[in-house]
Every structure is written in C-alpha cells, then in structure tokens.
C-alpha cells in the first residue's frame, strides 16, 4: 500500500497523536530523577518523623533541604501525573468521564504541589 505520509511527517516520527515518544521518555526521565530525590526524602522523613515542631522547622529551612524537597515534589508530581494519565486512558472509555478525569488529573498534582511548596517556602523564609 502506498505510504500517504509526507516526507516531513515521516522524518519527524511523531505519529498520529503528534506526540511521538515524548510521554514514554518523560516517564523515564522523571523516574531517574525520582530515585536520588526519593532516597533523600525517605532519609529525611525517617530522621524527622515525630520530631518536635521547632526541630522540623529548622531542618526544613536549611537551604539544601528546602531545594531537595522542592525538586522531589516537582519530579514526583510530574511523574505521577503522566502515570495516572495512562491509567485513566487504559480503563475509562466513556468520553465525558475521561475528559473530566484527565482534567482532575492535572488539578490534583498542581494543588498538592502549590500547597506543599507554599508551606515549604513559608518555613524557609521564616514566615
């Protein structure tokens, strides 16, 4: 059968969704960045779970801790958003529900991220 695609379309290799392997790649990219950041996160939580108020706040306001937790949040929230998108696309076939859940799937990480980063920066800047 004749290939009806233009040479430009073929060489770009983006396929019918015009998205190519971008989703797959970003899932792996954030998986790799999650690894060291989550190991730090686990270590931090183990060290400060149940610690008193002042001690937790002073640990969180250390600039390195603030930045590493902020990076961990951004990497994890992006990773989980595109992961959940695949789950929704796999199991939800009714168009209305699918669009609604895809929207919520963007809102949830943004809201969690905004709350967490706000709290983190408030502590870091001594609010």
């Amino acid at each position, binding site marked *: 059968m004749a290939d009806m695609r233009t040479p430009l379309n073929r060489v770009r290799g983006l396929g019918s969704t015009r998205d190519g392997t971008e989703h797959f790649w970003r899932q792996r990219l954030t*998986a790799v960045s999650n690894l060291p950041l989550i190991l730090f996160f686990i270590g931090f939580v183990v060290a400060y779970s149940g*610690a008193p108020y002042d001690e937790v706040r002073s640990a969180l306001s250390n600039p390195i801790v603030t930045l590493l937790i902020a990076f961990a949040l951004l990497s994890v929230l992006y990773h989980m958003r595109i992961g959940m998108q695949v789950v929704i696309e796999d199991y939800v076939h009714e168009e209305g529900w699918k669009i609604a859940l895809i929207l919520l799937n963007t809102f949830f990480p943004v809201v969690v991220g905004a709350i967490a980063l706000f709290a983190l920066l408030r502590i870091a800047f001594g609010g």
Partner: protein
Amino acid sequence: MSKSTATRARPLSPHLQIYRVTPTMAMSIMHRITGVALYFGTALFALWLLAAAGTQEQFDFVNGLFGSWLGRLVLFGYTWVLLHHMLGGIRHLIWDTGHGLEKETSTRISSATLIGSVVLTLVVWVVGYAVRGGF
C-alpha cells in the same frame, strides 16, 4: 453504507483473566496499583508540610494523627508501597536497556522486587524507631 460495520459485536482479544498468574504479571499489576496509591498519598506529605508551616498546635495535631496506630499503619503501608514502586521502577529501567528480559531472569528479578521491598520497609522502620521512636 457507513453504518454497516459498527452494529455487530467485534471480536475482542483475550484479557487478563485467561492467563495463569506469573511473578512478572503480578508485579506488573502491583506496580500500577502502588503507583496509584502513591499518587493520593502525596497529599499526606503536603499536609505535614502545611502543619509545620502553621502553628505549634496545628503541627502537634497532624503529628498526633500520623502517630496514632491507624496513622502508623497507613505510613507503614505507604513505606512499603513506595519502596515496591521504586524497586519495580528500577527493574523497568533495566528492562528498558534490553537486559534481563530472559524468562528465568525476568521472573527472578520480579520476585526480588517483592522480597526486596518487604526487607527494605522493615529496615526503614527499624532505623526510624531506633532514631526517634517513630511518629
């Protein structure tokens, strides 16, 4: 003319229930379930940060929730789910390079994911209790 094909039920490919459960299959399903659980669990960390950014009373209240037996149970489960998803992710990254895909090897590293996640969870909690007495 354009309506002729859609009215008849189309043949479907077989789904999960007809296959014998293997370690690779079970761990693949677990990877997805743990990912979904971790998704919602991020709200717990946001809550803890928010409490730390608030007053002493608010922080003590949230710490009390996490320190209750139910709170500890949820956090213990969350630790296991996180480590399981992490080890599963490492396994997938190895597979992405084209290594470890032989039948015996893939089965072995899938089982290792499960055993490793349980062992690491216990290590994290033992260290946690040794450091601080937990929440």
